[in-house]
């Protein structure tokens, strides 16, 4: 097979993986720290995409409109995340797993309809600025230039998160909370504040991911449904609470998708779930996770 085709497929897999990473990293962080699996994560991601679209419509006259819209979408989602945490999530910290899952699942349904009410049912498309409109050429192969931006954002967030978790005081507290809530609260740090912070951060990244996603293609109702389960797969493959694992898992899932489209188009999604199931069976804590708090 043609190496150039493989390369272009690899890059598109990578950009797909990066969007997944942006979603899954927040999901993993929230689960790792708060022990809450947020079904609504991808729904908020989609809300981010729609907000990006709306801001872009407002700022259409300006050349920088799209770029600013992405940032504004992320900030808006951070605010929404804060409201959700304080109003809903906080009430179920001590509840059992099914109730927490149901709460976030109910949010999926509500957010889906709120999107419909706000933005209607037709697809939305953002016209990209000239810089990322056309293809770029690698070794003579055309490649969507916007994908380069997506990949860069993905790695930038990965590095930023790594820096935050490893090098800052707050990052250390968050990491400690992954291992033991008791220890953190023994240090006199109020757990709810950490939880709120982590949730807002996670939703902020999801919003950013939505903003980044918006100009990729059209923004469609229901896009979140398939993505959220794939994001679960990423987190499972990489390991809950492991940033590196989430990054690797995202790339694996993105590449599986990209390459099976090439060789076995019907099997792309089937394969992702097979890999996920195999990882869960052999290493329930994932490739890079630790088997604690099982």
């Amino acid at each position, binding site marked *: 097979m043609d190496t150039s085709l493989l390369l272009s497929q690899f890059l598109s897999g990578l950009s797909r993986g990066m969007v997944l990473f942006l979603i899954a990293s927040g999901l993993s962080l929230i689960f790792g720290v708060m022990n809450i*699996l947020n079904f609504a994560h991808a729904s908020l991601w989609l809300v981010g995409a729609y907000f990006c679209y709306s801001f872009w419509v407002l700022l259409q006259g300006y050349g920088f409109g799209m770029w600013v819209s992405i940032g504004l979408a992320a900030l808006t989602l951070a605010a929404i995340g804060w409201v959700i945490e304080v109003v*809903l999530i906080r*009430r*179920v910290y001590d*509840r059992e*797993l*099914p*109730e927490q*899952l*149901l*709460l976030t*699942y*109910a*949010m*999926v*349904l*509500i957010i*889906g*309809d*709120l999107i*419909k*009410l706000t933005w209607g049912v037709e697809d939305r498309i953002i016209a990209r600025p000239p810089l990322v409109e056309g293809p770029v050429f690698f070794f003579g192969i055309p490649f969507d230039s916007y994908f380069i931006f997506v990949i860069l954002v993905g790695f930038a967030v990965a590095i930023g998160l790594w820096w935050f978790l490893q090098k800052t005081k707050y990052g250390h507290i968050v990491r400690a909370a992954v291992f033991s809530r008791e220890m953190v609260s023994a240090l006199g740090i109020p757990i709810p504040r950490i939880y709120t912070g982590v949730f807002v951060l996670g939703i902020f990244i999801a919003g950013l991911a939505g903003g980044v996603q918006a100009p990729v293609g059209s923004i469609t109702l229901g896009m979140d*449904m398939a993505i959220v*389960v794939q994001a*679960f*797969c990423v987190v*499972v493959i990489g390991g809950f609470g492991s940033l590196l694992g989430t990054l690797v898992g995202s790339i694996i899932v993105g590449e599986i998708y990209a390459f099976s489209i090439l060789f076995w188009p*019907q*099997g792309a*999604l*089937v394969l992702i*779930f*097979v890999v*996920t*199931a195999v990882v*869960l*069976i052999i290493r*329930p804590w994932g490739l890079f996770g630790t088997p604690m708090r*099982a």
Partner: protein
Amino acid sequence: MKRYWWLGLVFIVALILPFVIGEFWVHVAVEILILGLFAVSFNMIFGYMGQLSFGHAAYYGVGAYATGLLMVKASVPLPICLPASMIAAGICALIFGYFCVRLTGIYFAILTLAFGQLMYYIIFQWYSFTGGDDGLQGIIPPDFLFSATAYYYFTLFVVAAALIVIWYISESPFGYTMRTIRENPDRTRFIGINVKRYMLINFVIAGMFAGLAGGLWGPFNRSIAPDLCNWHQSGTPVFMTVIGGPLGFFGPMVGSVIYTFLMAFVTGFTEYWPLTIGLVIIFVVLFMPGGVLGFFEERVKIIRARALEVGAGESSEKENS
């Protein structure tokens, strides 16, 4: 059995129902029964075994496709299709369950979800066999079950028979073993029970009844689609069970009545059914943790406790061991 006189009453009401209500509501009643059976089968895993399956629709869907394919492609009569649905779903549950019961908690939930999605995409993509996303049309029940009322009675008897069987299982030593696995799997190992094997058996039985519910669905709806396997469909019995209350046998059935009735009612004048049910679920999760049945049981207990003026905290005392 004296405590269950009201069941006979419910059954009699169910028998005369089609004479009282219009055809639309007869359809709703069939849906209540089928989804209720689906939810009760789900609760064998959730309420009795203590694990949350988020992929129970896989077995419902496999059951639906087994009956659908047999009827459409081989013209097999419905009464033979239904047991075939149970067997197909049971085999599927045996294969997936073998791996699922090795995990618990969140990992169990995600693995069942992953297998559910796997099933969904297999049906979705296997165009030549399942018809892919076009689904399967023309699943016509036999003449004597063609009318809504006839199919209602057929469903009523099948579901009632299934519920009786599940009731017996839940009260059997096996059913109590499931409760002990839910309460304390470690202790259960140390009284000599192979916990994983029992969980697997239960998983398969639950899958079989989900398959039976799925088998009933196709001829009722005249068509089936891969969405029956989707994780959204898996959410339905979870809702019903949580709304109705997972700790009682009839909780999921009560949940099905509330859920399906509400859906039929709400979709009559708005398309925003997900928003409505989403708000209902949030309300139940936040304010009625034991579901409707649990809620009323609590009320009854409180009223009784007041009436009896029992000594300090005898009934409200809760200890964790």
